[in-house]
């Protein structure tokens, strides 16, 4: 099936099986390896990307549903000023250890801050409810997002 969508700001056409997961399209077909496969069933958030600005798990999206939609992965998002703020926040708070879950957490942080530019600690915790991290114990990630919100004031 021919699918046309916007990926990181550029129009793209791909010919793939209609039910192929967005996760596999991104990682295998387009070599965007920031998108990680953790559980493959929507529970861990490692494959999270933005679809029309909304956080989704790319393992649950069939290629056929992408027609005309806009997808942003970390490869595109990292070119923005907002990413710089999140990066600095994460770096200064030790929010990254092994790094496997990090792209998903960055996308979740962007989804949160773009809908709520001044989240409380509880709102941050709720904002990353769908992401699992086995290294940090979450506290450093929550701190990193709260820090990013201060660093990036005015960007969201």
């Amino acid at each position, binding site marked *: 099936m021919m699918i046309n969508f916007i990926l990181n700001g550029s129009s793209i056409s791909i010919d793939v099986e209609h039910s192929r997961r967005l996760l*596999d399209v991104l990682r295998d077909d387009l070599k965007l390896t920031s998108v990680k496969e953790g559980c493959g069933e929507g529970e861990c958030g490692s494959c999270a990307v933005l679809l029309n600005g909304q956080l989704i798990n790319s393992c649950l999206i069939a290629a056929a549903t992408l027609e005309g939609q806009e997808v942003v992965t970390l490869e595109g998002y990292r070119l923005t000023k907002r990413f710089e703020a999140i990066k600095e926040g994460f770096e200064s708070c030790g929010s990254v250890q092994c790094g496997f879950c990090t792209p998903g957490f960055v996308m979740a942080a962007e989804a949160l801050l773009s809908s709520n530019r001044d989240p409380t600690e509880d709102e941050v915790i709720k904002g990353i409810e769908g992401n699992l991290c086995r290294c940090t114990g979450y506290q450093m990630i929550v701190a990193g997002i709260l820090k990013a919100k201060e660093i990036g004031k005015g960007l969201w």
Partner: protein
Amino acid sequence: MVKAYRPTSLSEALLIRKYHDVIIFNGGTDLMVKYRNWTSVAPNFPKDVLYIGHLDELKHIDEKSDNLIFGSAVTYAQLLKHQHISHDLKNLIEQIGSIAIRNIGTLAGNACNASPAGDILPVLYALNANLTLKSADHSRVVAIHDFIEGPGKTNLRSDEIVTEITLKNQTFSHTFYRKVGTRKANAISKVSVFIVADVRDGRMEDIRITIGACGPKVVRVYEAEQLLKGKIVVEIQNIISEVLNIVANKITPIDDVRSTQEYRTKVACNLIETFLVKELIL
């Protein structure tokens, strides 16, 4: 390889449904896991797939004479953002799945999947939800408790599509929703309890009690509701054991990978007791 249909209108979708044996793909959060394949291999759908989640005709949210009516492709996230949705309904929708799931999952999909643990189902049962089912030739309205026939089984005919869900947009003095799982987000419930009650002048005018994951279908405990209705709230403390007995006899939980029969029965009763003892007084 199975075929994909991606119609541009509901009428086209209904014609495809009439003439072809297809799986309906709405949000896809359940189907993509159910038919999951090896990494980098497309999910293994056993039949042709009819995609309907993109159809604008299934994305409306309206309020008509106290009824909240929304299309079957409306996601949890769209409902959360909508002005007509009560604060209580929003609070409980926020407990379903996770942000990423709520952005694509639909309430109609949860109903059609008909899992005994479907998280929005106790809510649909308690609020007397009706589903509109359409085929190319007819349209009918079915109550949720008639629509779901058993685990994974509904009375949707092979030529029909769920197009709409209608809820009474009532306000209640008390709304209570608890799901018990291994994790707050995303976990499949071991037990869930949803109660709405309307207490006016110290009297229980209305109460609806529904329990998820404790039987082949969601259980609405009408007998317990009848017993509680009309009672003075302060006197309810005297009949709690009677209510809990009815509940324990009505539910038929099983032992499975997530929990046990004993645990589920105990927790369902405890949650209802918590509501009757602690929440009702406030």
